[in-house]
């Protein structure tokens, strides 16, 4: 049994639903915050996720960082060195999807050359009539960035555990890969 620990950045434009997703993660999918209150700093949520089909788990230290452009710079100081990335956009806002590549650039500056696995989350899947981003387009972009794609609705509590499981699995397989490398090292 292993307990892994990962610092997970939760990023994306303002009002895409990062904090709402965070509430869903925290309450195991039972609590949707109805009133919008913009995150102006960073919030921290610790969530332990069991990796399916193993006895191992990953403690995710999720850093919910303000998406509003004018606040990002101040928040970046709190990001530290990330282990994982959860990038969120609003399926009803083409603009929030277009911003994702800017978020990727920002994150890379904090990774010190390390590969940081992650997920791309298209939120607000309940608003199907207002959808502006097609799943296939998002999927393709996610793959080009090495991210795993999920669609969620924090409001309808749909599929919200999928990104968490994806993150936990990705970090767990990275750990196993690195452990194998270390087992095969030659002496100094």
């Amino acid at each position, binding site marked *: 049994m292993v307990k892994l620990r*990962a610092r997970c950045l939760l990023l994306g434009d303002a009002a895409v639903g990062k904090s709402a997703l965070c509430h869903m993660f925290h309450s195991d999918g039972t609590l949707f915050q109805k009133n919008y209150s913009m995150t102006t700093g960073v919030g921290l949520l610790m969530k332990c996720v069991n990796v399916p089909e193993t006895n191992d788990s990953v403690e995710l230290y999720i850093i919910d960082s303000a998406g509003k452009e004018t606040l990002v710079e101040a928040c970046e100081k709190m990001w530290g060195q990330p282990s994982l990335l959860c990038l969120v956009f609003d399926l009803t806002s083409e603009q929030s999807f277009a911003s994702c590549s800017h978020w990727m650039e920002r994150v890379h500056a904090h990774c010190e050359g390390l590969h940081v696995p992650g997920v791309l989350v298209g939120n607000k899947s309940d608003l199907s009539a207002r959808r502006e981003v097609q799943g296939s387009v998002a999927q393709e972009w996610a793959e080009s960035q090495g991210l795993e794609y999920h669609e969620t609705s924090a409001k309808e509590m749909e599929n919200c555990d999928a990104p968490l499981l994806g993150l936990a699995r990705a970090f767990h397989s990275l750990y196993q890969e690195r*452990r194998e490398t270390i087992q095969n090292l030659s002496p100094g």
Partner: protein
Amino acid sequence: MIDSSLTSLGAKVVVATSSDENHPPENIIDGNTTTFWMSTGMFPQEFIICFAEPTMISAVTVDSFNVKHLKIEKNTSQNASNFAFVGEKELEHTDGHIQTNAVSLNGSSATHLRFIITSGYDHFVSVHRVSVQN
């Protein structure tokens, strides 16, 4: 003394911030570089070695992988508290083989040594052996 493992001298690892039951912290002091303790994510990481009795130490040698910055503290107390800084080192990155680094501790006496890994070259680091030069 470098040939005898710290375990055989009665030392113990009393604190470690990561645990993978297949790679326990005892592997650090068994004198064997094929066994290791591995960190399980995030920095800093640390472990504390407790000696059976106050021990004069001129230097320690650390065999590790992907450790970037290592800081060492010590005390002469029975408890693992009130540590004082004794040395630090920026380690070079190695590819495919273990990093071996000596850190001078100026021949001071210690009952506990605390190793703090403040950063790494990867998400995970390993420590294969700590040995002590008297």
